């Protein structure tokens, strides 16, 4: 496997469709109008020397190395800032140019250390390459004058010298090596959109500064890595490269964090991962990354990883390490025993949204074909199940309608219950870029998320609604659109069912849906709702992006339908720049849903009661499938408490920490006789497990992930599994132990089976993915290249369906005992339950969960910033430290759930979405009071967790 070397064209591609022909060094070349001479040259295979140019950013023209001569023009223009013109005759190498370039290079090198041999960038340094390219042999100016290189000049302190900034855990900043090309500053501005860097001073004093001459950690830097990637020298460089050295081979793979699904080059030295570098051809991320995908992969080699299978009789026993064979045989015999004793329905499985499509497919196959029931569910139950249901009802497909590129064509973007700059940072950056270009933004969120106001981005409308009133606000928006005549009647008549529309329009037009009428309980001033509705309806291409703030409510499915209604009534479906876009939480939550992880659905969202679909699988698998839907996660836990559900196989999910009402989950697990946890770490759920099967990371297996835009991306194995087997192999061995005749030799064979059985995946194969890079399903005969945008010529279900969305207040209400509303979310540096990110240096940014509380509410309760507070709901109580901020409105408190000792889900209730059982995480009535420290439950829990993690013959595994 060689290194994947990406060509840097120097300036971004022009999107013009008009072509211009010119001659460069005697070669005739045609390029789109607006292309720079530099890029045109590179496309003709002629590399013009450059330092400040890179194709991730606009041309800057500061390094003076890329000068060219153009016939009929005076002087030597910079090729990066000069666009091509018809008939232009360009020379990139003349004696004059060579002399000038060499002179420029001499100036650069006269203020640069000459430690190439011991420099971390040796072998990957553009300055070094350019010195070679221009034939630098001597520096006439010498190295003795003023400089930024030496700490001391002839014994005297050199005030121009600055020490290295090592504050960021992942990269260093060494100003002595800086050539002030501004690439890092521009990357931070143009690519990431954080504007954390600048050039301070002027002339020879110019230097890169993070924030106001701060270190990187204290500045606004979010550690996305764009500046490190942009740096042509070793000034900004990964600490891993300093430590290990340059990589020698690489493979393209897909990030295993959020649902954006960024493509990365895993750059390796042998089996050691040197660094992850975003891949420019990755169609989800277009060469960008965030702190998690770029840097937070250290968990894969963390000492907490369990590498041997373990068994114990009782959960109070210490773990006992066993052989794989023993573990498989034990699980097989236990599950068979339980089914014999308690009936076929007494066992089930949970598929993982972090594992590959192929692994997920196998787990549901094991449940359906091996256990002989449909008791399979996945973590989408607790996040985006309402998306699947709601969009399925309205449009006919259970997924987002666009690709991420679509945002480049949006004019008005509505973000509902999502916090893209933290939860989906790379999409957040792409969105911010579009907003800086002038697109308008509407935010519906109880909390003032960063997007509401962040450098160069400001929402036109922020509707700070009370948690739980999404449906009321969305229906009020529809009310304004319908009653003010803003509906796109032509679109509706062509694409939607007109009589259903009329019924719905009459419903939303009712006066009790008006913004003025709902203001009382939504807390959103009516004029904001009216303004936002008018902007969305009239502002051009309108796109809606939403997250778990929409779905994790008792009316989650209704809210999704209300969003679909809003898109249809404004004609915003079926072309670039519009659409309904769920921002999926986990890397493969879309895929796990696609793969038939729900108890009522076979792969491809086909109902289990559909005879034809069942027959396809029955024939292939040689079994008879149960035509009744099985149990959902909450039902499994209820049944366990009732004593009818006794065994579960959980792959890569930590339900104890992530699912609502922790005490109920714990009771359910405790009531089971065989809990099998298949994971990287002894997670919280494993405290109640009888069998632990070690899992493998995304770096250790082949497979595919499907991201939020339905894009099927390859995951490539770059090292052998530390635990010995990829997860799909473990599931297969388990199935074999249960007597199933499985014999997959490679995940590609599993994908072939998926393609053969699932129409929307019919054309997908590893060979095809190799050729295409990635495809978006549906990918079949009708859509051979996949489907970037859905519902282009008509809705998948035929006519778009308008559905009435009556607001019903949640049963979770505030009162005298619990006067505040708690809502939850995530933060940039941490991911989900934190099992991965807590085991990386990302803890430098977020070492504990904090409770955000408005100054007014804090003052009433005598709470000061950083005080310990007790957070109590009807379900339970926990303690954490307060963070006083006006990001949350009075009456609302907010926390993240990344740390197990916070136990935020002890607080959340078991209310859930009426259609899909998706838990109502986002609304819990609570009370907050000062406290001295951890609650009794937290202390007991910690002790129990410690006890439960003991491994016989080993020191206690440290969490």
């Amino acid at each position, binding site marked *: 496997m060689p290194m994947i070397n990406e060509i840097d064209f120097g300036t971004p591609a022009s999107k013009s469709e008009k072509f211009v022909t010119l001659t460069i060094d005697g070669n005739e070349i045609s390029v789109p109008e607006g292309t720079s001479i530099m890029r045109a040259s590179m496309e003709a295979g002629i590399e013009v020397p450059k330092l400040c140019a890179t194709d991730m950013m606009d041309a800057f023209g500061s390094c003076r190395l890329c000068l060219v001569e153009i016939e009929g023009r005076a002087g030597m223009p910079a090729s990066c800032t000069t666009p091509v013109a018809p008939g232009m005759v360009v020379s990139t190498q003349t004696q004059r140019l060579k002399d000038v370039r060499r002179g420029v290079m001499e100036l650069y090198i006269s203020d640069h250390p000459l430690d190439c041999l011991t420099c971390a960038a040796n072998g990957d340094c553009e300055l070094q390459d350019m010195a070679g390219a221009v034939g630098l042999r001597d520096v006439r100016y010498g190295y003795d004058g003023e400089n930024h290189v030496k700490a001391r000049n002839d014994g005297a302190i050199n005030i121009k010298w600055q020490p290295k900034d090592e504050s960021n855990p992942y990269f260093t900043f060494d100003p002595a090596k800086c050539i002030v090309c501004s690439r890092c500053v521009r990357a931070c501005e143009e690519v990431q959109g954080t504007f*954390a860097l600048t050039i301070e001073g002027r002339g020879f004093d110019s230097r890169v500064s993070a924030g106001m001459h701060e270190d990187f950690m204290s500045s*606004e830097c979010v550690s996305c890595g764009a500046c490190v990637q942009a740096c042509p020298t070793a000034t900004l460089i990964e600490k891993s490269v300093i430590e290990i050295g340059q990589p020698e081979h690489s493979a393209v793979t897909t990030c295993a964090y959020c649902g954006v699904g960024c493509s990365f080059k895993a750059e390796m030295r042998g089996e050691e991962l040197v660094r992850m570098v975003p891949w420019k051809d990755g169609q989800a991320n277009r060469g960008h990354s965030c702190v998690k995908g770029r840097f937070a992969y250290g968990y894969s080699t963390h000492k907490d990883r369990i590498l041997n299978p373990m068994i114990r009789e009782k959960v109070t026993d210490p773990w006992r390490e066993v052989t794989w064979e023993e573990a498989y045989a034990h699980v097989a015999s236990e599950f068979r025993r339980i089914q014999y004793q308690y009936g076929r329905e007494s066992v089930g499985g949970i598929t993982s949204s972090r594992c590959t499509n192929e692994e997920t497919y196998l787990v549901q196959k094991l449940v359906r074909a091996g256990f002989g029931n449909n008791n399979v569910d996945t973590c989408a139950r607790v996040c985006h199940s309402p998306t699947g249901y709601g969009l399925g009802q309205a449009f006919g497909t259970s997924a987002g309608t666009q690709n991420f590129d679509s945002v480049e064509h949006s004019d008005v973007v509505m973000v509902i219950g999502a916090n893209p700059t933290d939860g989906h940072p790379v999409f957040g950056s792409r969105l911010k870029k579009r907003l800086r270009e002038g697109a308008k933004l509407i935010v519906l969120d109880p909390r003032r998320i960063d997007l509401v106001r962040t*450098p*160069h981005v400001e929402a036109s409308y922020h509707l700070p609604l009370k948690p739980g009133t999404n449906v009321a606000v969305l229906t009020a928006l529809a009310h304004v659109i319908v009653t003010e005549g803003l509906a796109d009647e032509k679109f509706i008549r062509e694409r939607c069912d007109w009589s259903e529309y009329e019924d719905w329009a009459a419903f939303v037009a009712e006066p009790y849906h008006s913004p003025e009428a709902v203001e009382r309980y939504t807390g959103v001033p009516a004029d904001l709702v009216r303004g936002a509705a008018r902007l969305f309806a009239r502002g051009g291409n309108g796109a809606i992006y939403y997250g778990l703030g929409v779905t994790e409510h008792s009316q989650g499915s209704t809210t999704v339908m209300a969003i679909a209604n809003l898109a249809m009534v404004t004609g915003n479906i079926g072309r670039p720049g519009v659409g309904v876009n769920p921002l999926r939480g986990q890397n493969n939550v879309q895929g796990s849903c696609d793969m038939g992880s729900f108890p009522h659905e076979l792969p491809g969202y086909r109902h289990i009661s559909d005879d034809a679909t069942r027959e396809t699988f029955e024939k292939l698998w040689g079994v008879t499938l149960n035509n009744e839907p099985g149990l959902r996660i909450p039902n499994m836990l209820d049944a366990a408490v009732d004593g009818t559900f006794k065994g579960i196989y959980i792959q890569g999910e930590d339900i104890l920490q992530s699912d609502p009402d922790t005490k109920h989950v714990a009771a359910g697990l405790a009531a089971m006789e065989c809990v099998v946890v298949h994971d990287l770490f002894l997670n919280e759920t494993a405290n109640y497990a009888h069998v632990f099967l070690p899992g493998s990371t995304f770096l250790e297996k082949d497979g595919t992930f499907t991201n939020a835009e339905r894009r099927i991306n390859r995951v490539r194995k770059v090292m052998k599994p530390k635990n010995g087997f990829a997860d799909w192999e473990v599931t297969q061995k388990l199935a074999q132990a249960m007597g199933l005749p499985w014999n997959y030799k490679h995940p590609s064979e599993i994908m072939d089976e998926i393609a053969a059985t699932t129409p929307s995946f019919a054309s997908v194969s590893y060979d095809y993915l190799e050729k295409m890079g990635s495809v978006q399903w549906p990918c079949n005969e009708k859509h051979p290249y996949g489907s970037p945008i859905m519902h282009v010529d008509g809705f998948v279900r035929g006519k778009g369906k308008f559905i009435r969305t009556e607001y019903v207040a949640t049963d979770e209400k505030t009162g005298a005992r619990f006067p505040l509303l708690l809502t939850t979310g995530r933060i940039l540096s941490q991911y989900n339950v934190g099992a991965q990110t807590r085991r990386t240096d990302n803890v430098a940014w977020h070492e504990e969960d904090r409770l955000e509380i408005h100054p007014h509410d804090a003052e009433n309760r005598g709470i000061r910033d950083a005080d310990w507070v007790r957070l109590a709901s009807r379900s339970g109580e926990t303690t954490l430290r307060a963070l006083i901020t006006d990001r949350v409105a009075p009456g609302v408190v907010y926390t993240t759930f990344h740390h197990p000792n916070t136990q935020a889900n002890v607080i959340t209730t078991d209310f859930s979405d009426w259609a899909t059982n998706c838990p109502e995480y986002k609304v819990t009535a609570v009370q907050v009071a000062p406290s001295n420290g951890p609650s009794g439950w937290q202390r007991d829990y910690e002790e129990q967790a410690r006890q439960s993690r003991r491994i016989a013959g080993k020191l206690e595994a440290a969490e």
Partner: protein
Amino acid sequence: MNVHLNAADVSTRTRAIVAGCKHLEGPLLPILHEIQHEFGFVSQEAVPVIASELNLSRAEVHGVVTFYHDFRDHPAGRHVLKLCRAEACQSMGGEALAERAKKLLGIDWHQTTMDGAVTLEPVFCLGLCSCAPSAMLDGAVHGRVAASDLDDLIAEARQ
């Protein structure tokens, strides 16, 4: 003005200045001028306030402030004496004049005399090349500055 200010004060007065200039096209430079006029320098406390009010990053404002030599990060003396260091003035004895000024004041470039009376700054061209060497005291330019003229200027400033 050269008084000690607390952060809250700086913040309130900065906000008021920004509010007055916000409507201008490209308001940052006018704001920085006003701030310097109000406080005598652009304090570190004012930068984040300006950034937040204009919806810029701290880094961006810092970049602009440091680009211009005339924006100070600490208060100057009661008077600022600038001596031209550009080519024309150097060829007309500017170098000697500068040495004289340093000696008379007992300070180097960018420093302020112990009594807080005078800050000495180099400047690169006051546009008075035909009357070199030139100097500027508190905004008033002086051409053909002979040694005795310099002594008078300094004496005036020290009063």
